[in-house]
């Protein structure tokens, strides 16, 4: 089993290599639009997964929940993807001609907001703030979990020295953990809204929906919780770790996942019904292209069934939520549905008048695998640095009753 564990990072890096080669091949083969579209879609999806998963931990600490301790440990591991996400965001600059179709369009006065320099500045700062708050929250929450007298890895040793330099006070650290948790949640809503407006909605610069920001961050929580469930189920099934979840923990996590499935569908419907009633051509064209006209209408139905109808009908059942392998499959399906949903939102805008670039190719799948490899490597790397997070035994916070 130890061998299997040690193979995860090389396998993940192998996926990264495959994705990189596929991306490079697409560029070299004269399909830069398809390559950059895949890059943008996967950057948005995997960043949302990492950002949304950390929300679980921050949210649970904010409401002083105690049932979710073991899941929080796993949720925090997704923060390891934050630096990767930021670098990937900067990488978008090189594909700006393909991912910002408004660059050479007549924006009718929107140039003040929609220009590359300002967009990269504000979104870059916003992501730095979000990730900074996430790491600050992690800094204070890890103090309760890492054994300061016995740091077992290099990163733990460095953190222990940092904490020792400032003479940690449990009450102060607990308060700061709470404050940074709340700040992260607030920043999450604001920053994800901004990213949704700038990188997704602005692809059709004359279309707008004021609910699009809320839709974006609820979607991030939905996919984040889905990925967390997959990680929890896989770790639970792995005999190499002492990590075990009870049936009720799986059921409660499944309920939360179900709740955000409903919240996501609700925000989709809220936008749809308002646009339907308004019946203004500048708003309806966006919806008609994506839901009624080929080829995107098929993708729209697939997304609707995979991300809402199937989870809704299946998760009504209580017992199914406690079956780890089934929840892994269901959450994986939802993540794939959300991947398609990003294509649905961005595809028609990025395709322009070139109908050939609407088609999916093997390159899209391989680039997806590359990004998935990055996330897997980051999360596994974190859990290697903090192996105590997978212990069945309670952490310092529980043992000392500091919460």
């Amino acid at each position: 089993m130890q061998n299997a564990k040690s193979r995860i990072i090389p396998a993940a890096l192998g996926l990264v290599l495959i994705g990189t080669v596929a991306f490079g091949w697409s560029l070299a083969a004269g399909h830069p639009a398809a390559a950059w579209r895949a890059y943008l879609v996967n950057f948005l999806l995997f960043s949302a997964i990492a950002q949304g998963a950390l929300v679980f931990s921050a949210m649970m600490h904010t409401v002083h929940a105690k049932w979710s301790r073991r899941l929080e440990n796993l949720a925090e591991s997704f923060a390891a993807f934050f630096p990767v996400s930021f670098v990937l965001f900067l990488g978008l600059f090189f594909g700006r001609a393909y991912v910002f179709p408004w660059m050479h369009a007549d924006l009718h006065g929107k140039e003040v907001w929609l220009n590359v320099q300002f967009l990269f500045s504000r979104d870059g700062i916003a992501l730095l703030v979000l990730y900074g708050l996430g790491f600050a929250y992690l800094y204070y929450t890890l103090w309760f979990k890492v054994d300061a007298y016995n740091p077992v890895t290099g990163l733990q040793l460095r953190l222990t020295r940092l904490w020792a330099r400032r003479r940690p006070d449990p009450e102060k650290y607990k308060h700061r953990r709470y404050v940074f948790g709340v700040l992260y949640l607030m920043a999450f809503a604001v920053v994800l809204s901004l990213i949704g407006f700038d990188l997704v909605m602005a692809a059709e610069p004359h279309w707008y929906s004021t609910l699009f920001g809320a839709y974006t961050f609820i979607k991030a929580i939905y996919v984040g919780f889905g990925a967390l469930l997959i990680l929890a189920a896989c770790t639970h099934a792995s005999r190499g770790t002492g990590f075990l979840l009870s049936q009720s923990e799986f059921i409660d996590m499944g309920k939360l996942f179900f709740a955000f499935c409903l919240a996501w569908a609700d925000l989709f419907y809220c936008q749809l019904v308002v646009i339907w009633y308004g019946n203004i051509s500048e708003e309806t064209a966006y919806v008609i292209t994506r839901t009624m006209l080929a080829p995107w209408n098929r993708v729209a139905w697939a997304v609707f069934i995979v991300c809402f109808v199937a989870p809704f009908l299946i998760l009504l059942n209580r017992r199914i939520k406690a079956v780890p392998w089934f929840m892994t499959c269901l959450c994986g399906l939802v993540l794939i549905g959300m991947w398609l949903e990003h294509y649905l939102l961005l595809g028609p805008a990025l395709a322009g008048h070139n109908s050939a670039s609407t088609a999916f190719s093997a390159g899209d799948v391989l680039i997806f695998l590359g990004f998935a490899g990055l996330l897997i490597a980051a999360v596994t790397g974190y859990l290697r640095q903090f192996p105590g997070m997978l212990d069945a035994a309670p952490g310092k916070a529980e043992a000392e009753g500091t919460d």
Partner: protein
Amino acid sequence: MTNHDTHITALFADDAQAAAAVGALRQTQWPVADVHGPIPSQAISGALGIKKSGVGWFTLAGGVFGFFLGYFLAVFTSARWGLIVSGKPVLSYIPFFIVGFEFTILFSVLANVLGLILLMRLPAHRDLPRYRPECSADRFGVVVSCRQGEAPEVRRFLTELGGEMPEPADTQRDL
């Protein structure tokens, strides 16, 4: 057939203790006659081996029925008048979803209450002679049936499990 003519009530501070006591009692010859508590507890239900309530099925059936009834009502009334409002089709299925949703909630609630009444066989014109007021505050009461001569042994057993033995109202002989 054993003649259990006496009932003893032990009070526990939390549901976990009460559930543990129920589990231990089920290993003995003294049956658990009843359990009273201020809140519902899955742990106690599990220890008693009570099957999941069927009320949920009533709720689900009510919800599904309500959803289609709401849609049908919206379609039926629109078709009866046939008025075109703001250029929209007479049968506008997208906003009709709101009516369907509201009816889902309404009929789920109504069916839930109906299921509760039917499955609990309400109204129940009977008293709870062994009920203690502490069970409406902060205690869980486990009522055990036994023979009169076994009462001291049962009390000792329950005390060892962490139960409080309120005297003297805890021991009641069946009339």
